[in-house]
């Protein structure tokens, strides 16, 4: 029972960390960034480089943010910016990019599966249950990410301008907000978050050139049911991630893998605004 609750909470935390970057980009730019999976892969390989260089495993996180952020800047400038008026085409172009990222990584690192060093080893005793310390740490990291983003959006001038662009871009531009700059920063930040997410998940599994793709669809569905709000994303991660854990343990792992996608599709059919309040 306690183990299962911990499973649900940690799964939700991982999903939250994976989906925030995508949510940020979708909220501001109304664009689904299908390169998110590719950027996560990039973050995973940043962690691999950190391991191979013998660095402290925690340094993998800023390194992954750097990799993702730099790639995000280039993608925004050369691929996403020309496609603002064509959101469906932007999905395709960013999917093409994730193919490119995957193939370049394959050419450099080979297609084999590799492993990284986890920052935290061993287990922790919690409520009489010994549980993976790293998974528990992820809950703290995801919470920190969520709080930092909320603080950024609610407490800074950039955040105010970003929220203005989310609500009404034309009006925001009319008020002298440089929306192109807001979009650029948002996409860079979203890509950096994708990289971080990639680095965070590698100790749980392994690193390979397509590691981000399976996460992409789940993150995408979570973002769609949450609208543009970090709070409803949290709710969506807990509910759908919880359902995934329950289905996977009690029914079958295969069905568990489908739970988020299928449930989200049904939720959107019944309630198009999903978990968002309106």
């Amino acid at each position: 029972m306690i183990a299962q609750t911990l499973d649900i909470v940690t799964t939700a935390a991982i999903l939250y960390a994976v989906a925030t970057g995508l949510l940020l980009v979708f909220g501001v730019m109304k664009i689904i960034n299908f390169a998110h999976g590719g950027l996560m892969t990039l973050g995973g390989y940043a962690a691999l480089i950190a391991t191979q260089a013998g660095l402290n495993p925690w340094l993998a996180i800023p390194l992954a943010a750097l990799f993702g952020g730099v790639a995000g800047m280039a993608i925004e400038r050369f691929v996403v910016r020309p496609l603002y008026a064509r959101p469906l085409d932007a999905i395709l172009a960013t999917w093409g990019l994730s193919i490119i990222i995957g193939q370049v990584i394959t050419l450099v690192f080979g297609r084999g599966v590799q492993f990284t060093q986890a920052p935290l080893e061993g287990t922790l005793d919690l409520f009489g249950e010994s549980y993976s310390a790293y998974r528990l740490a992820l809950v703290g990291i995801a919470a920190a990410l969520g709080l930092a983003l909320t603080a950024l959006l609610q407490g800074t001038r950039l955040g105010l301008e970003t929220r203005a662009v989310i609500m009404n871009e034309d009006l925001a531009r009319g008020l002298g907000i440089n929306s192109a700059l807001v979009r650029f920063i948002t996409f860079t930040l979203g890509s950096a978050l994708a990289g971080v997410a990639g680095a965070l998940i590698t100790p749980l599994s392994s690193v390979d050139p397509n590691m981000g793709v399976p996460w992409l669809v789940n993150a995408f569905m979570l973002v769609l049911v949450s609208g543009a709000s970090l709070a409803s994303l949290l709710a969506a991660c807990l509910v759908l991630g919880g359902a995934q854990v329950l289905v996977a343990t009690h029914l079958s792992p295969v069905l568990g893998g489908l739970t988020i996608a299928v449930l989200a599709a049904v939720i959107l059919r019944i309630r198009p605004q999903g978990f968002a309040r309106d």
Partner: protein
Amino acid sequence: MTEARRLSLILAVALLALGAIFAGPYVLDTYSVNVLTRSLLYAAVALTVDLLWGYLGILTFGQSVFFACGAYAAGLVFTHMDFSEGNAVLALALGVGGALLVAAIVGWLAFWHGASALYASVITLVLPIVATQLLYSGGTFTGSSSGLSGFMSFDLSMEAWFWLAGSFLVAVTTLAYIVVQSDAGRLLVAVRENEQRCKYLGLDTSRLKILVYLACAVIGAIAGYIYAGYAMVVAPELAGFVFGTELVIWTALGGRGTLLGPVFGALIVDYESAQLAGDYPFVWQLIIGTLFVLVIIAFPRGLLPVLFDIPRKALGLVRKRPAAPPASVTLSTLDAAETQGEEVGDDGPALAVHGVARRFGSLNVLEAIDFEARAGELVSLVGPNGAGKTTLMRCIADGAERSAGTIVINGHDIGRKPPEACVALGVGRKFQMANVFETLTVAQCLQIARARHARPSLWRRARELPLPEAAMHVLATTGLDRQLSTPAHLLSHGMKQALELSMVLALEPRVLLLDEPTAGLTKTERMQIGAILIDLTKKQGLCVLLVEHDLDFVREISSRVIVLHQGRIVLDGSVEEVVASELVKQVYAGSGHAGIAHESGPSTAQEMPA
């Protein structure tokens, strides 16, 4: 070019293509014949992606699933039941039936009234993921991750398979080409361009999308069935998301909305992949990925149109094209005996609104709206901005809009019916902003408006377009009848308004809803529209409900005026009563400032959104 000549030209090209397919095995080496057989089948699936995405505007990632349906039906039947002629027919029936069932479920989920384009794409994205996982979890029945192989199949030579796959591709491409070029095919483009306008022209767009989706599922399943028969192996990857996106990539590279582009895109890329993937697997993928991104950004129409444009431009330098192509459609007035609009209600009101309310959360935009209007009445709806005029129009034209109350059109309660069903009851709605099909010509826009009455042909293009007298009258008065082959986006604002009005009149409505039909028009144009409206009510017996800010205009043409203020009817009476009313002056000018409303007509006309 006559219809017969156009169709025989298409058939001649198809025969040429068949000839090329026949010659294929004699000029190509065995390896190429083998690979191309697969490519020909993939191309047929890419064709369905183009029909859905290029023509209908539905970006689909899941066409691979229908291919897998046909392939797995063959694989499962031949593995578990042995191969026989009877079983071969059974497998085909199961494959097509399964694909139809899946497509029906997806269609129900993705194309319901009000679903967004993004949601439909999301559903098609979930589909292959679900399908692959189900195949993985099928154990020995589906062969799990290794799929099924080693089953018996038709005893055909490699050349025969090539001919079969090639003839299938030529047949479906020809059929699809004829359909998209026909009058019915133009509906697909109209739905892609402006689905809302299609619904308000009485077309059931959800049904149309589902029908096309079902047809595409059948094509995919047959291609998959042939594939399984020839390859004698089926694997879960056939249903996968990766194959589904590859189909989209081929379609985008070749040129969406061209049919031939995606077919050649699939043939060339898949064939080259087989040639090069052995030597440079990752580099090849990298090249395709890069090319794909470049094409999406720089040539969204794909490479085939670019190829075709080069010789066309070169030719254009040599000889000048005629400025305006001659009209391919001639208009005629529909015989009054053949009009198919709703009968005039016996004696009851044409439009009865009772207790209608519309709330957005705690905000009451409309409250307790009660009125009736008879045939032959021109009722103007006036009131300041935000009074709820447009919301009321929306509630009358779409049963799902109102929060409470009943609306009866010609004696029929509209209930919760969608816009297209309200059109069938006799409602015609003209939007505030001119709402036409921008890329279609004037004549094509009018044809779409008539599609509800005259079922468009699946293979021919009509040369003649009979229109009801009222629509003809608007076209003749505004001079639009001399611009039939002009694309709508080139028309002036006033002409677009007139075009939309004639499109709505072509529906033969009994209740006409006009939301500021004269907004942004010149004085002369306004007078013309006014005369037409009076004519429609007096002679044709229409019931017209008009939203207007220009009170001078309202005074000239209305038989009755309803004043809305803050979501309620504050006055319902004759023009004189309303003009003389102190209340109306207060409503318009604010209670502190008793400006005279009707004398400030021209200036109030300025406040309308352009």
